């Protein structure tokens, strides 16, 4: 089992979801985040004073997958989120040691579904 964490541009969420649905990946979790990578921010000014906006608004996706779904999920995310510009985001894959469905108590690959 793997846990896929992806940081993407907020406005690419719809595209990413469409691609994931095509791969039959329906279970995802989305949170708002602030962050930056290579960009180091953009120019904003308030009442004549420059603000270094080095924390930009991002979206964090969390998807728990079985081994056989890992590659298709990652490809789907990339297809949906890639624009070719700096700021497209990053995907992290970590090992998931256990997964439990709260409602039924099922564990393991069955719980991931």
């Amino acid at each position, binding site marked *: 089992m793997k846990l896929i964490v992806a940081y993407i541009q907020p406005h690419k969420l719809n595209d990413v979801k469409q691609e994931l649905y095509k791969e039959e990946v329906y279970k995802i979790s989305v949170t708002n985040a602030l962050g930056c990578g290579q960009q180091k921010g953009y120019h904003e000014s308030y*009442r*004549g*004073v420059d*603000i270094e906006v080095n924390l930009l608004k991002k979206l964090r996706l969390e998807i728990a997958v079985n081994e056989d779904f890992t590659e298709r999920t990652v490809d789907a995310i990339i297809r949906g989120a890639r624009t070719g510009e700096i700021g497209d985001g990053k995907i992290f894959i970590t090992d998931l040691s256990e997964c439990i469905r709260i409602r039924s108590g099922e564990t393991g690959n069955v719980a991931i579904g």
Partner: protein
Amino acid sequence: MRKLKLISITLFMLLVSTAVFADEINAAQNAVAIDTVWTLIAAVLVFFMQAGFAMVEVGFTRAKNASNILMKNLMDFSIGSLAYWAVGFAIMFGKDVGGFWGASGFFLIDGDPGTSEGLWELAFWMFQVVFAATAATIVSGAMAERTKFIAYLVYSCVISAVIYPVVGHWIWGGGWLGKLGMIDFAGSTVVHSVGGWAGLMGAILLGPRMGKYIKVNGKTNVKAIPGHNIPMAALGVFILWFGWFGFNAGSTTAGTNLSIASIAVTTNLAAAAGAITAMSYSWIRFGKPDPSMSLNGGLAGLVAITAPCAVVSPTSAVIVGAIAGVLVVLSVTFFDKILKIDDPVGAVSVHGVCGAFGTLMVGFFAEGRFADAAGLGFVNGLFFGGGWSLLGIQLLGVVSVFAWVSVTCLILFSLIKLTVGLRVSPEEELRGLDIGEHGIESYSGFQIFSNQ
């Protein structure tokens, strides 16, 4: 028969003359009623400006301090009302003592509802108290986000009880500046510059907010601390603009004075011109039209036209407002970047600087036919053949009020600093005054990014 004719003709004449005389009495009573009604409507409009100030100040500051600034605004009006009832009104409009202040009518003792003078005293007080509260509430913006609440309450009482009324007496209450012929029709100096300069002294003695000016290798960097709710600030400006029609036109305190029409026109045009030039100038200078600067520009136009509103033409009003719009942007950046005095909402620039500016503009743009229609006599400023004398008196007034307010506020804030303390602790400032001073969250249930 002849005697009967004589008697009946005499009786008829008496009847007719009584009827005419009765019409004259009714007309006079109606005039008083119209004046009273207009004054009270205007008072209510100006009262609503308190909501405008509250919204502007909340919008331009951070969410973690919202309830604190609202409390200051609420108390400015509440404490101000009581202070002005007890002492302030008497100092401002009481029997003159040496041209400096008044000393009669404490606790509205002359407001006898059984006489027409007494009733007018009550109506006039109602109109004047909302003006006093306006001056007081300007300061909460300049001192926002770092002032101890108890310190602010003390200041608020003193300004409404003494500092503001003395200035009002000098110019409106029969004091020395009014006697010299100074014209400040609705209070660019009396109300707005008093608030502005008091705010300036408060901001200086407080020091800037944490994180505003950061020293790096001997050079001080100016950081922006953005307001958390620009829509609320915009709502506030619209409310102020709305209430200002009561502020300026109401200062005739007479609905029978039809110059309320020209005053409303000049008020509106100056605000509009100020908003446009502030927007344009911020566009040129900073690259994009800044909403908060444009909003301040509208207010700047309003403050600037407050003194000349009754004595200038609509064209003059556009010019005055337009200059004020540019002036306020220059002033905000001057105080922030050059003097390094932290003024979160631009109160010093909008009210102090533009208040002084508007007062001086009377000396240039006053026009006889407008002043006369408003009941001030045929007064002309420099541009209309009146020479330099009016401008000189205006300048004297601006400078003396600045001196009085800055010295008294310097003493007041220093005393507060030495006794109860003026500023909150650093830990409290970081956590937010809502929690530190009031023990509550303004936005309970919301997730606010508090990384400043």
